[in-house]
């Protein structure tokens, strides 16, 4: 098991940042000083003051409250979508590697073809047709990331298959699925964990990008990506409205990346070598 004492400083900083963001997002309704969607036309684009620490946006909504609540949707979508993508991708990758031959060849070709189609195009099209409800977003994002996860897991499974304990399990006459579940999966768990942490950081970026482009959450809802889009026209007048969500979003992703790097180093999975896919 992972012991906190063995982790590097960077990893601990990363985990703290992520933990803090999650706690704030969960407790947001109690922490936010104002209703994040209550407008106040007389008080629009105000600077920072004792009543509004970070000022207000163009509709007079409190920026601090919106920033505190702004991570909830992105975090929820990211958590569910990353889990779905990693679970499905792991199954596909492990099964393709286990059965080998034509199953493997066919799966690889199909995954490659899906990867060749730009993710953003698929996402935007799915969202524009089926709406932007939570489950549509989760489904769309998982579809985009499943092939990449499957490819990584397939690569990690292949060396495990030639080990003695898998051969022994086969010789005992165990069936394929129990072998995958009991022998293969525990031994590629490190790769899967690092994969999860890495994907999570990209999914957070992707969700906020979708919101920024107007394909994510619906406008009155507070969301970091959407806030940056809404407030950046007033960047010179009330900079806090844009800078606050930028800082919180970046801190979360920096935290996720630090955690993924540290986890990878701890578990012996070199992450930097791999790039985006």
């Amino acid at each position, binding site marked *: 098991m992972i012991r906190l004492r063995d982790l590097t400083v960077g990893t601990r900083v990363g985990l703290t940042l992520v933990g803090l963001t999650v706690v704030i997002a969960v407790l947001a309704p109690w922490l936010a000083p104002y209703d994040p969607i209550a407008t106040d036309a007389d008080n629009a684009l105000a600077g920072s003051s004792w009543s509004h620490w970070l000022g207000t946006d163009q509709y007079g909504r409190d920026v601090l409250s919106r920033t505190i609540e702004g991570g909830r949707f992105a975090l929820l979508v990211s958590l569910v979508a990353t889990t779905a993508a990693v679970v499905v991708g792991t199954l596909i990758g492990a099964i393709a590697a286990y059965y080998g031959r034509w199953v493997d060849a066919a799966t690889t070709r*199909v995954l490659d073809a899906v990867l060749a*189609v*730009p993710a953003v195009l698929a996402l935007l099209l799915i969202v524009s*047709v089926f709406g932007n409800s939570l489950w549509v977003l989760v489904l769309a994002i998982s579809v985009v990331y499943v092939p990449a996860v499957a490819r990584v897991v397939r690569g990690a499974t292949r060396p495990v298959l030639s080990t003695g304990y898998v051969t022994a399990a086969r010789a005992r006459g165990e069936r394929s699925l129990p072998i995958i579940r009991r022998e293969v999966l525990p031994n590629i768990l490190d790769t899967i964990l690092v994969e999860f942490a890495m994907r999570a950081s990209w999914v957070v970026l992707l969700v906020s*990008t979708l919101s*920024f482009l107007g394909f994510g959450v619906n406008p009155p809802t507070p969301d970091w990506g959407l806030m940056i889009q809404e407030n*950046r026209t007033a960047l010179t007048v009330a900079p806090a409205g844009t800078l606050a969500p930028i800082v919180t*979003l970046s801190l979360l992703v*920096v935290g996720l990346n630090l955690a993924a790097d540290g986890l990878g180093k701890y578990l012996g999975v070199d992450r*930097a070598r791999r790039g985006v896919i």
Partner: protein
Amino acid sequence: MLRLIGTRLATSVITLFLAAFFVFFAVQALPGDVAEQLLGQNATEEAVATMREQLGLDANVWVRFAEWLGGAVTGDFGTSLVSGESVSGTLWTAFSHTLLIAVPAIVVGIGLSLVLGVWAGSRRGTSTDSGISIIALVAMSIPEFVVATVLILLLAIIAPIFPAVVLGGPGASLSELLPAIVLPAITLVIAMAAYIIRAMRSSTIDGLATEYATTAELKGLTRRRVLWRHVAPSAILPVLPVISINVAWLLGGVVVVESVFNYPGLGKLMIDSVSTRDLPILQAIAVLSALVYVSVNLIADLLALAADPRQRTLHSSQRRSRSSKEATA
């Protein structure tokens, strides 16, 4: 060797065909067909039926796929549902605009990040290394639209050196576009550099730990010569796939950057076509992006084959992974 290249070419063609297949049938599966799109919600049943007949939507879906594919191979993607112009014309204009920001970004980005990566790797553990690594980590954590927004604030509003957005639409001339390519290109460089820097750093560290690097050092070469002449060239090999993925991403999906700068390239065309549901254009963009993805990966693989004789034999991958594991330990 020739057989290896042949197999690699064949798989690329199959991948491309499969991608086109998915794109076509995914679009077919969308609710509401092109005839209903064109006529709007108030159209009568007969009008929709007539329109379907005119567009040839009555034909069997496989026949239409074959026809569409046949057209796509010769570069004919039909006509846009919105503007009525030929899709390939619109597509090439947008693609050439995207190349205008992507090619400088790719050249500068790859060059800069390779050098920074080697530099950080050769000074592992020093403050130079930590500095570069932290900057790379932050750069990959900040979304592109934030980088673009900050660049606009710094270099277009506070110090008005470059235009913040492109005002001319798709018909903008080259002289209008040239001053506007700088900020989008810088954004792309920042977005892609981080991954290449990290991969190159890690690969350089491996390279410095090899026996040939020790040999070169022991025969009295300067550290600089060992690094740049002996280690760096072969350390680029494992980074090639990272570079190719970044380049493919850059050419296929510069959606965010182009949308922030209102730059009339492929990504902007994609967003506009999604909002108007211009399906023929979206299909064409998807196929073009798939073509770019497949070609860039093919080129990277062929370069690796040309540069590394070990990859030309079947068991190379095992041997390579073992040696790199020893090096990281």
